[in-house]
């Protein structure tokens, strides 16, 4: 059964993400995904993903996430930055499920609605319109990061050319990349 269009029909709530929000979101996404900011910008998905989150979890929760993120990202050291993200976001009962869903969205192009209990606790008045996992858009799928991470490509798009599968892929191992987020 094919998933319906994700709650994309509804307009953004009155307070829309500003330029600072978008910048922090990009750098947070970079820290969360292990892809550099311009790699993420190259997907064209940063804006749409923040818009989606804004609609689904609302401006207040997004604001909390971005505030915590700005704090964590102020750490220059990779290790303390990671610890800060884990402490203030990843393990937070309120914000953790959202950032985890965000990582999955970046990596697979699919939005997985937050667990029923979370929705009942934090968004009882704005349930997620998506009944189940849904591909956010063709661009979300085509630029999903997991394929870049593993030297492959999304099935059905970005083919690498006849016979290319007989050779190692063009991209070098991800171990050589690293993230800088300021």
């Amino acid at each position, binding site marked *: 059964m094919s998933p319906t269009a994700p709650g994309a029909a509804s307009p953004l709530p009155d307070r829309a993400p500003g330029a600072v929000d978008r910048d922090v979101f990009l750098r947070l996404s970079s820290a969360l995904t292990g892809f*550099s900011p*311009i*790699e993420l910008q190259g997907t064209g998905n940063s804006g749409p993903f923040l818009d989606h989150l804004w609609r689904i979890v609302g401006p207040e929760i997004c604001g909390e996430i971005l505030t915590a993120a700005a704090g964590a990202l102020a750490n220059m050291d990779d290790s303390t930055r990671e610890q800060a993200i884990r402490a203030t976001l990843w393990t937070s009962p309120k914000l953790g499920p959202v950032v985890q869903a965000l990582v999955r969205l970046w990596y697979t192009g699919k939005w997985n609605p937050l667990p029923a209990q979370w929705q009942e606790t934090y968004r009882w008045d704005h349930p997620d319109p998506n009944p189940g996992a849904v591909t956010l858009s063709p661009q979300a799928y085509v630029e999903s990061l997991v394929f870049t991470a593993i030297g492959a490509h999304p099935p059905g798009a*970005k083919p690498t*050319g*006849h016979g290319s599968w007989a*050779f190692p892929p*063009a991209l070098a191992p991800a171990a050589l990349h690293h993230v800088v987020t300021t």
Partner: protein
Amino acid sequence: MSDRSFLDPLHRQLQAALQVEHATIPPYFTAWASIQDGANGEAAEIIRSVMLEEMLHLTLVANMLNAVGGSPSLTHKHFVPHYPHQLPHTKRPLMVSIEKFSPDAINTFLSIERPEAPGAGPQAPPFDTLGQFYDHLEGLLRTLCDEHGETAVFCGKAEQQVPPSAYYGAGRLIVVTKLQDALGALTEIVEQGEGHDGPFDADAAICGTGGREPAHFYRFLEIRYQRRFRDGDADQPSGAALPVDYTAVHPIRSNTQFDDYPPDSPVLHALEEFAATYGDLLEWLEQAFNGQPDRIAQAVHTMFALKNQAQALMRIPSELDPARTVGLTFDQSRRRSVHRRSPARHHPEVGWIRTHSSIASSEPT
């Protein structure tokens, strides 16, 4: 070994032809890649097909050069022009830019492919139109054959050339072993590019798609007028509508240079990587054109990768102009430095690593 120096002018002119045919590829590629996914499908397909035919022309010229004992060169320092650039070896003012798909770009493409005026004669570089240049080349070939004999002129080895089996799509590739082949190749190039008798090829069989595909010039006219040509049309198409949306295009900066960006900018390094990938393409083609035709397959892989890298760049907002995104550069001047970077061949913020590091080393055959 007999003195082959009489062939030097021919080699130079064919190498010039190689450079001219190539010079259109970065602009066509950029316009094509700048079209947003899902939009302008027909226009995108036209530009793509023209670009692929230019690659065919490049290969035909390379085959001709090999046929007369020359060695095609695509990686020497000045092979890729610095854009914006006066179209190589052309007399009339024709500045070609690396820019997004737009009415201006289409006008430039029309100028590039413009057919010669009726009665216009052959011209050596600098020439008015490509067609006149090829007429001149035809004359030169005939003269040399008359003076020295066909066998002396066509002294190259057929195995050095790219055979049809290594090349698919976009028209007919031939191996050149005699004057008649070379003349056929020149005709193919001119018919596909400018056409001779209006929108449709006089001989539909020349056209590889087997159908009545207009020459490049007329295909660009279809985009300009947003209509397809049909039988009976002369200079303006009156057929089916061809919708074009010039807003569904990445708003890239034109004629991007490395120096536009500060030295440690992540965008700069992404641009260098892109240009280096393009350099890989030229290296693969050069190998293919110098006795290793199976390298065409690698060149194709590189083209696929190039498109992905281009589209990624074109989505990045440019710090230099808030209304625009990062453009492309094909500048080969930093290629060696990218090659020479340490094993982590990357910039911390870029993440891209170029295609096949092993171009220079032993390749799986």
